[in-house]
């Protein structure tokens, strides 16, 4: 840009000088025009690119683009308007200036001077013509042989450049030349042309001016005469070339030169105007383009700090707080950029702290979730509107619901969830009644012939920042604990009963036998029979009581398990073999799946299978028809082996199902009622579970679940 500016200034100065003084009209050469055009093209390209870029920025709504275009427009108008006015005035001024070079008086004076010079020269030429005529007369006195010498002497006398004597056919007869000797037969450069002969023919003499052949402004006078001694004699032409005096020639040449230069300038008058105006137009265009280019550059420079600041602001608005503006000390916007950087730094720090706090809260939340999810107690948090906010894994399992109740009202979440319905129905009055205090209650739920006991506690939650309050429910499944306490009580009772009853049985039996032994000989036949019968009854009842007491004892005992690696399927087959053909009407079907070997006490598990199969067979044998007992085993997931005993017998009475595994509960007429209680006890000793229900065939279904033990666990247990 600086070079373009210098170029423009130089061009303007040049035009000023050229128009001020015609002698300086060495107008810009073609290289200057080429330079003008090249500079113009470069500026045009630069401006076009700048405009396209500015419009593109405006369309893409880039920050500061509108401001830049406004500045560019303002600069353009402010620079173009004065340039146009000045250019218009300058163009008119140039025309006036160039016209001032030409003055009609000067032109006439020059023409007059030229004519004066011509006339002066012709006066001299006339004198030469008179001399030439004298020479011609002299020739008449000589014969042709004396012509060359005479002509030579006359040339020297008259200071002629050359003298030529030609005959009528323009053949050279004699000549004398200042540069050549007389014998030379070459045509002179200055051989008279056709015009000379034509005038000689008409007028008999010729007088004219000719520039000399040296090109140094010298001028000669050409004079010629026709000579004929008599009317019938030969006709000759004598012509001579006489140089003008050096001073005279110099003056004449000066006039010639001045007139020539003036005429040349006059010829160029319009062209000069045209050229200067064209040059000025080019300079004006260049100036406008230069102004535009400069306007674009400076607009961009002016708006750049603001654009950068706006870009930074947009970056901050879009979340990029690490944006830093470059601070130039020499820039007026430096304090602003520094303040911006300080602001973004503080914002960044604040956001970082907030993110760390959020992370901390999230960690605490995760921590709480993990704790809650690994609690065996069920936990549910509710809002004051009974909307479920959180429910842990244990609560899901205990209440047999999935997590989809979150953000639902308790009252609305119970649909299709019978267990949850019973739970909610029980606790809802407590929730409504104790919104600000703690409470606890037992929830008894009977589902699918099983009784569950949950101990539920409620406590109000503190108010959150959002103003929300609510209740936390914590509940535990007490079913197993109560059952265990129940079983323990039964064991204690059984053990005490066995101990208290068993002790007197032997003396009673011995006393009865002694009574029979002592009294039998002393009694009559009939009395003996009565005594024997009574004694037998006592002995038999004592035996029965012993059996019963032993059963109690067995139930109460908790002998250590002798675990071994057992294939459950083989154990089942062994037991089934014992009963396979006992009842011909009953078919035992085995559908045993592929199950792993687990650690079991084989004797006690055999007792379990015997008890269940025996119970089933006894129940089915009461009906005189074909029956089927299907025993199947399968692996449930990788954790449990499930064994099903399905018969098509009469099944278990609904009223007994809940208590079937309690001692002294039996549907049989005979029996201690401890069989299934012992079965349950053995299964639980193996960490398993047993349940009873109705089979698809309408009979009873016993389901055993035994945990799968890994090899390492098996080794550890064994």
């Amino acid at each position, binding site marked *: 840009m600086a070079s373009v500016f210098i170029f423009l200034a130089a061009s303007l100065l040049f035009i000023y000088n050229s128009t001020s003084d015609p002698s300086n*009209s*060495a*107008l*810009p*050469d*073609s290289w*200057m*025009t080429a330079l003008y055009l090249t500079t113009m093209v470069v500026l045009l390209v630069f401006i076009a690119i700048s405009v396209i870029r500015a419009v593109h920025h405006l369309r893409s709504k880039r920050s500061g683009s509108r401001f830049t275009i406004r500045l560019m427009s303002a600069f353009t108008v402010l620079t173009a308007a004065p340039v146009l006015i000045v250019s218009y005035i300058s163009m008119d001024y140039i025309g006036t200036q160039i016209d001032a070079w030409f003055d009609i008086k000067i032109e006439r004076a020059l023409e007059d001077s*030229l004519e004066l*010079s*011509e006339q002066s*020269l012709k006066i001299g030429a006339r004198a030469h013509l008179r001399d030439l005529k004298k020479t011609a007369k002299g020739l008449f006195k000589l014969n042709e042989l004396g012509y060359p010498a005479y002509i030579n002497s006359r040339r020297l006398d008259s200071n002629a450049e050359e003298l030529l004597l030609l005959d009528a056919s323009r053949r050279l007869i004699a000549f004398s030349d200042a540069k050549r000797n007389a014998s030379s037969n070459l045509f002179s*450069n200055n051989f008279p*042309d*056709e*015009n000379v002969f034509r005038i000689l023919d008409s007028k008999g003499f010729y007088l*004219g*001016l*000719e*520039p000399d*052949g*040296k*090109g140094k402004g010298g*001028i000669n006078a050409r004079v010629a005469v026709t000579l004929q001694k008599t009317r019938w004699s030969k006709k000759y032409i004598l012509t001579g070339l006489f140089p003008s005096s050096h001073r005279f020639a110099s003056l*004449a*040449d000066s*006039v*010639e030169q001045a*007139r*020539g*230069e*003036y*005429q*040349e300038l*006059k*010829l*160029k008058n319009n*062209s*000069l105007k*045209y*050229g*200067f105006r*064209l*040059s000025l137009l080019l300079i004006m265009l260049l100036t406008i383009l230069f102004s535009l280019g400069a306007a674009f550059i400076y607009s961009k420079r002016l708006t750049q700090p603001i654009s950068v600041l706006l870009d930074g602001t947009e970056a901050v608005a879009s979340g990029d707080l690490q944006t830093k503006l470059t601070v130039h000390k020499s820039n007026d916007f430096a304090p602003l950029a520094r303040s911006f950087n300080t602001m973004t730094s503080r914002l960044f720090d604040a956001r970082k702290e907030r993110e760390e706090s959020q992370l901390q809260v999230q960690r605490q939340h995760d921590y709480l979730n993990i704790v809650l999810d690994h609690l065996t107690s069920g936990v549910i948090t509710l809002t004051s509107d009974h909307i479920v906010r959180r429910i842990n894994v244990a609560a899901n399992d205990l209440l047999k619901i999935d997590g989809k109740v979150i953000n639902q009202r308790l009252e609305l979440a119970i649909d299709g969830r019978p267990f949850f319905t019973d739970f909610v129905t029980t606790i809802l009055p407590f929730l409504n009644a104790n919104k600000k205090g703690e409470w606890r209650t037992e929830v008894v739920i009977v589902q699918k012939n099983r009784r569950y006991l949950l101990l539920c506690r409620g406590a109000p939650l503190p108010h959150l920042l959002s103003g929300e309050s609510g209740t936390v429910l914590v509940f535990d499944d007490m079913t197993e604990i109560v059952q265990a306490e129940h079983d323990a009580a039964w064991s204690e009772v059984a053990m005490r009963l066995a101990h208290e009853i068993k002790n007197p049985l032997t003396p009673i039996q011995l006393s009865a036998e002694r009574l029979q032994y002592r009294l039998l000989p002393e009694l009559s036949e009939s009395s003996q029979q009565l005594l024997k019968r009574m004694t037998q009854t006592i002995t038999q009842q004592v035996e029965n009581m012993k059996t019963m007491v032993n059963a109690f004892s067995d139930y109460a005992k908790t002998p250590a398990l002798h675990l071994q690696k057992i294939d459950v399927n083989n154990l089942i087959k062994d037991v089934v073999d014992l009963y396979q053909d006992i009842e011909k009407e009953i078919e035992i079907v085995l559908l045993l799946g592929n199950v792993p070997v687990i650690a079991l006490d084989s004797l006690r598990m055999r007792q379990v299978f015997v008890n269940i199969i025996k119970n089933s067979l006894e129940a089915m044998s009461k009906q005189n028809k074909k029956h089927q007992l299907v025993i199947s085993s399968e692996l449930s997931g990788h954790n449990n082996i499930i064994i099903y005993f399905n018969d098509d017998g009469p099944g278990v009475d609904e009223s007994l199902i809940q208590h079937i595994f309690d001692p002294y509960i039996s549907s049989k007429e005979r029996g201690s009622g401890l069989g299934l209680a012992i079965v349950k006890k053995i299964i639980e000793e193996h960490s398993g579970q047993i349940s009873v229900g109705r089979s698809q065939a309408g009979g009873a279904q016993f389901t055993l679940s035994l945990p799968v033990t890994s090899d390492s666990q098996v080794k550890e247990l064994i």
Partner: protein
Amino acid sequence: MLLNKLLLITLSLSLMQFFSLAWADDEIVIQKLKVTEDAQHVYQVDVQIDYNLNENMKKALTHGVKVKLNFAVTLGRYRTWWWNSTRTLTKLSYQIEYHALSKRYILVRMHDDKPVKRWNFNNLSMLLRQVGTISRYSLPHMSAAVRDGSHFLYFQVTATAETLRIPLRIQTYLKGGKYYQESEGVVWPLG
């Protein structure tokens, strides 16, 4: 209707003829050209040129502007795959001046932009006739290779108002050669 059409056609043809003639009057034309080879294998040129200078050139002359005439001979070689190669062989330069004091036209033979010889003529047409006749002009020696059939000589004549400075040149560029004239080129095959 038919008469109108015929009239229009006649008028158009007349105008075309007039403009073609008018245009031809302002042209520099190489009328005759002959290239001969002497016993020393030197090429000699005989040429007749009609220097029909336009009015602007003539006016420039009488206003003190010198007009430069150039008769350029170029040696070229045909190339089928690229533009023909050319080399300026020789240039015959003259300068015409008007001497207002004597009202005569001066013809100056130029060599390397320096005057070599001067003649003066009573009128321009005589001068142009004289300068337009070139007889037995010997071209510089050329190797025998130029006679292989692929070489040619190219002749062209130009007339330029010599002292023109930039404004007139700009006019020349913009207004179509008022102060510059050139003839059609003539090709003379060699070999």
